[in-house]
């Protein structure tokens, strides 16, 4: 277990380093510079600006100094928003994105599991068909379309919920639903198929023969095993929710990290691009890692230190 964690930790550091390197050089290869947007800046001002942000130094030097500051968790300064540190921007944006992401994850997992279990228990019944139709629709309709439909119907047409921004709990509902339908559908389908499989197992028959209540059979015996596949895809789902939040944050005008990421790319704000990418990737890699560890604990049959295959 310990060796496995250490090995994975090493791989995480390498992945993160690779991402930093890749992003750094890709970003500098991109045409344009952060100062293109500045109106009426003459050559001297441009040169001063370049010097101020050390952008005139050799690229290798910039790269090394950036790596060095990363070791201190210092993401540098924003170029297009003078006076703002990237750390500051992340500290502003991350809690909002995190709240949206966590809400989405909770809603998606809860509703997905409930739908999946109901569908499996009423296999080939009306509830099963309804739940699976809902799931297929959830997978087929992209989240940005779901978001616009929700705004159109619930906010503009019926005035039930606010259409945009992020100030009260009411504002959280629509973006969460829009972002959660896709993952919910995936979880519902997965839960249903693994639940169907588990319900045919001998130990379920034994539990039934012992006279356990249906509730106990489902929750204590079946669900515990049926949920393992769901845990494995939580990592990838988190990634999907993270990237999905770019577009959802844009549509609902939510002041989260996604906005900074897209804006910084368009304005070539080098340090903000680097900061958000590294932060996102780091967060994602840690999530994937935690999911794997959790999986090892939940299913004692999986031996983490053994290589698969």
């Amino acid at each position, binding site marked *: 277990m310990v060796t496995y964690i250490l090995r994975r930790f090493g791989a995480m550091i390498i992945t993160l380093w690779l991402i930093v390197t890749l992003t750094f050089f890709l970003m500098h290869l991109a*045409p344009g510079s952060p100062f293109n947007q500045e109106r009426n800046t003459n050559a001297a001002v441009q040169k001063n600006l370049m010097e101020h942000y050390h952008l005139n130094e050799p690229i290798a030097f910039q790269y090394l100094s950036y790596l060095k500051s990363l070791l201190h968790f210092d993401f540098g300064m924003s170029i297009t928003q003078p006076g703002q540190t990237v750390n500051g921007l992340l500290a502003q944006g991350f809690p909002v994105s995190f709240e949206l992401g966590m809400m989405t994850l909770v809603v998606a997992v809860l509703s997905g599991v409930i739908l999946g279990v109901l569908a499996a228990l009423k296999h080939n019944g009306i509830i099963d068909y309804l739940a699976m139709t809902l799931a297929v629709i959830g997978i*087929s309709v992209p989240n940005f379309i779901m978001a616009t439909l929700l705004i159109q119907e619930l906010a503009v047409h019926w005035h039930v919920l606010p259409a945009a921004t992020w100030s009260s709990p009411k504002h959280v509902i629509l973006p969460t639903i829009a972002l959660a339908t896709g993952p919910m559908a995936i979880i519902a389908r997965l839960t249903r198929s693994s639940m169907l499989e588990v319900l045919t197992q001998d130990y379920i028959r034994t539990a039934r023969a012992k006279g356990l209540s249906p509730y106990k059979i489902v929750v204590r015996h079946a669900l515990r095993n049926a949920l393992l596949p769901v845990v494995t895809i939580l990592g990838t789902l988190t990634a999907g929710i993270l990237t999905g939040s770019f577009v959802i944050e844009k549509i609902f005008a939510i002041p989260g990290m996604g906005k900074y990421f897209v804006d910084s790319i368009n304005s070539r704000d080098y340090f903000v691009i680097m900061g958000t990418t590294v932060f996102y990737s780091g967060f994602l890699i840690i999530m994937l890692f935690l999911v794997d560890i959790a999986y090892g604990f939940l299913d004692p049959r999986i031996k983490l230190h053994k290589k698969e295959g």
Partner: protein
Amino acid sequence: MALKNVNEDETFSDHVSISIPDHLFTERRRRKVEAEAVVRPSLNYWQDAWRRLRKNKLAMTGLVLLIILVVLAIFAPIFSSHSPTKQVLTDQNLPPSKTYWFGTDALGRDLFARSWYGARISLFVGFIAAFIDLFIGVIYGGISGYKGGKVDNVMMRMVEILYGLPYLLMVILLMVVMGPGLSTIIVALTATGWVGMARIVRGQVLQIKNYEFVLASQTFGTRTRRIIRKNLLPNTMGTIIVQMTLTIPSAIFSEAFLSFLGLGVQPPYASLGLMTNDGLSAILTGYWWTLFFPAFIISLTMYAFNVLGDGLQDALDPKLRR
């Protein structure tokens, strides 16, 4: 008599035959022939899978929908009397009518021609990206799985690292570096997209290479390349096809997503994602058709692929069926 007939014995055969009329023997012989006759034609793997798929109503709906969508995407822009990019300034924001079947947008462009032109681009991106993923993924996964040992270890470490990269972040960065455009989208989508296919092919190959028929081939001294091509790949085909029907909609989704963010196909060319983004203003203006048609076509395409993919999975992988 009947009893004797069943217990036919050579020693009694002479004197039994005297008492039994001839027609009884012919009767029995014919029955035997019938019992061993192959009534149904023998089916190979693909015919069998097709038979199963045809029984699956939902999957067939998906297949038919998909064929209709592809045909419309190819031919509708050609036969439409309107151009997808031509702006008719007097015909702005017209609702669906006889001349403009899907209405027109804020610049007076025909949404029918534009939607199907966009669908063509989306489908094109989806298919090409999936085929490139297939090509790289199968070769990489095949070699990794077949060679095993150290080669496999190193190749899979690389895949693991690529798998850890946040997919869309990398795609967005690549789009920025290479400049927006159709070929950029395809390169960006496939740069990290082949990893999933490689992992799946490797897993399958690892399993199949231990079967006896592969050992037999190896004993004959068949070359590695031939073993992979003739013995291993045909047996992984089912899984590969299922994976492809999942890759195509996810590529279509990514393209729409990028275009929606303004990083994909650039105006004046149409793409369903771009059109959905244009249609966003419909929420306030009430021109519902500018949003509805592109959104509906994307959703329908994704639906068709997903349903067909599910059906194919059931049809091609009988082991998983229950």
